[in-house]
């Protein structure tokens, strides 16, 4: 296991470097954008004096480099700074919404990963069979429709026409668990439809390429059922590519769902970041960026570690 711990240490180190670089990238990129938080906050009718006062209070005048270093020093002391727009601590603003994003991504993953694996396995059992063709059709159709359109269609059918599910995924303290689940059902289904296709296609491809291996023929010639051969012999060897694509899609679920949040009015971190960039609220942009980046680095780390644990040859290294 020494190999694995060494890999984790290297990856964590590399991850930290990545995070610092991302924070710098985000900071200077947002700084490049025209206008600043004062103009964004006060809107078109702002008087020059009003703009000046805000800029002074938020010390926007200092050079970008200094503001960044100041922010970085703050982070090292665990203080992620305050939102320029509302003055509230960035962490208190981001945490609940990031929790929502993770919850939505988690739920979508909980549904889509087993579904993708199950359907992928079933399709690999009888390649070219009825189920295989149906599954491939579903994949190509869901891949080729924009997410917001899938969202609108689902709302139209389940919320407007049938009235079974709310179209607004607004979560409030007072809601019971069932209500909360009901509220996020449609966005979860949308996300599942978006990521399912990619994972499923990959699972099926990985399995079928492993099925061409000589040890599969040996297993079949031992008189084992095709189902047993796929599950016990093919799956463990196809695990690495499957895990890689699952990690990629989980990354998308967390990082790329801004559009779904807008359509379902879901208070997630994606919309928060778009607003923060719009308002040039640098500390908030940084915090959101770091949250997304950390999730991505962790996901990749987990994927690599699991890929090693599944493969005995690497595990023993």
């Amino acid at each position: 296991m020494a190999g694995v711990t060494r890999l984790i240490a290297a990856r964590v180190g590399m991850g930290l470097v990545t995070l610092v670089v991302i924070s710098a990238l985000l900071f200077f990129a947002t700084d490049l954008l025209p206008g600043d938080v004062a103009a964004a906050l006060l809107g078109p009718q702002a008087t020059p004096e009003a703009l000046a006062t805000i800029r002074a209070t938020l010390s926007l005048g200092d050079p970008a480099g200094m503001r960044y270093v100041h922010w970085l020093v703050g982070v090292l002391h665990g203080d992620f700074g305050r939102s320029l727009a509302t003055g509230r601590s960035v962490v208190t603003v981001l945490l609940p919404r990031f929790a929502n994003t993770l919850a939505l991504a988690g739920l979508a993953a909980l549904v889509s990963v087993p579904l993708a694996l199950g359907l992928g396995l079933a399709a690999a059992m009888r390649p070219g069979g009825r189920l295989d063709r149906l599954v491939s059709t579903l994949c190509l159709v869901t891949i080729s429709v924009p997410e917001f359109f899938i969202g609108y269609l689902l709302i139209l059918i389940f919320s407007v026409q049938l009235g079974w599910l709310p179209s607004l995924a607004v979560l409030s303290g007072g809601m019971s668990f069932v209500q909360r689940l009901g509220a996020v059902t449609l966005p979860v289904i949308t996300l599942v439809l978006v990521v399912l296709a990619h994972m499923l296609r990959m699972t099926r491809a990985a399995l079928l390429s492993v099925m061409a291996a000589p040890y599969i023929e040996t297993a079949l010639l031992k008189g084992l059922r095709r189902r047993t051969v796929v599950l016990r012999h093919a799956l463990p060897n196809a695990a690495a590519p499957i895990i890689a694509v699952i990690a990629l899609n989980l990354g998308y679920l967390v990082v790329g769902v801004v559009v779904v949040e807008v359509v379902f009015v879901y208070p997630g971190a994606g919309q928060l970041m778009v607003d923060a960039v719009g308002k040039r609220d640098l500390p908030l942009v940084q915090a959101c960026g770091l949250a997304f980046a950390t999730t991505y680095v962790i996901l990749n780390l987990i994927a690599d570690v699991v890929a090693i644990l599944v493969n005995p040859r690497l595990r023993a290294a």
Partner: protein
Amino acid sequence: MTAGPLLSIEGLCVHSATGVAIVEAISLELARGEVLGLIGESGAGKSTIGLAALGHVRGDCRITAGRIVLDGMDLRLQSTEGLRRLRGRRVAYVAQSAAAAFNPALRLIDQICEGPVRHGLMSRREAEARTIDNFRVLGLPDPAHFGRRYAHQVSGGQLQRAMAVMAMSCGPDLLVLDEPTTALDVTTQIDVLAHLKELIAGAGTAALYISHDLAVVAQIADRLLVLRHGRLVETGPTEEILARPQTAYARALVAERTGVALAQPAQTDAASASREASRPATAVPAAILDVQGLAVRYGRQDALSDASFALAPGETLAVIGESGSGKTSLAYAVCGLVPGHAGRVSLGGTPLAPGYADRNREQLRRLQLVFQLPDVALNPRQRIGSLVGRPAQFYFGMRGAALAQRVAELLGLVGLDPALAARRPGELSGGQKQRVCIARALAAEPDVLVCDEVTAALDPLIAEQILQLQRRLQEQLGLAYLFITHDLATVRRIAHRVLVLWRGRVVALGPTGHVLREREHPYVRQLCASEPKMRRGWLEETLARRADPSTV
């Protein structure tokens, strides 16, 4: 258990998806406990027939005609479920490369016990106990815990025996062995062969033993069936075929293994002496390649330590040893593929940088490497013409018509039809591909050709032709060969001098005849004793005579 033959195949025909006939009108019968040898070169359809005995066809081929009756049941009429219940229980298969046949992600014990348990023959505990017994019978180390290992943690020979245990785990009536020892070293091959024979005889199992090596089949098969291009050439009891081969093809097979040369002068021990004499009589010329204190280390393992030798122009130095003896490391180090090696390699007197990247173009040109497996040494997407022509273009800047002309010349030189230039490697046979590799090496007009077991992957007859080609080229072009091999017959046939490697150290170096006659080092003795001879009973004699049976 019906009376009559255990397995009878009548008029079997198998065609590929594109309609090419792979096997035509093959009929055979196999009694209970009898061992039938299927002998023929690759592409003769041996494996296809073996697999047909399990009702299985590879890729997109189809059994187009014939009946396959196993113990009274016609396999072609069985449902998939019916076939499934038969496989493993009544008829079992042993693949050629055990390393590829074992699932890398599962422990050996799980894969072996899976068959009997899934077929409901015994409980998991019983299966494990039986497997451990079989491990002990086959002489595998630490039988109780051997099964806990994974395929990559076990040597080739041990894995092959584990494969046999797996096949026998359900006590099948028929065992199909598809070239079980071909991928092994000579010395390991003997042990595995002996244990297989013992296992089959012990259980009274019938066997179809498939191989392209007559000497090996002769030791184990009661009757032989000679095949060529999917057609039956000759069949009969083994002694009959060995003593009096009827057809020309059978005679060629027998001759090839007994060292009875075809048109060439005899290549017996005496022959190597005459080979040695044919070297130019002038004073020993200055060495074209000189290696001093060559050592290679992979991580904590010393693959090769302190190898020193010299190679004169036009001379062939063979390097022989088992797999893992460091012979490939030696070759790769000389060519610069192992930049971390110690010691000095100099070409034509000037020392070479350890890594090929640091060598100048001229040095790279004068030293060419030919790989063992022609399939992977040629880029599948390039045409033969550009593959062969590229060195000429790269080193000598040949273009257009001159290049095309040079390519035709080279293909001719290696005995290939120049029209092949337009084809892709995928459309050529193993032998043809190896000739292309050699032609590519010659295009650079090298002084030294490093050949890494170039005939190991080829059928005996084809290998013979490659060796003759290389001798002809040596005489015509004055090429020096550093010839890596694990086959003594090859050494006798082509090498002026030989270097014997054992576990990374040089145990013998000198003229071929002298080294093979004196046999000062025990390993050299064992090496010479392990070459299978064309007579029944040789296997048993060798085992009895063996000094320390543990040298595996």
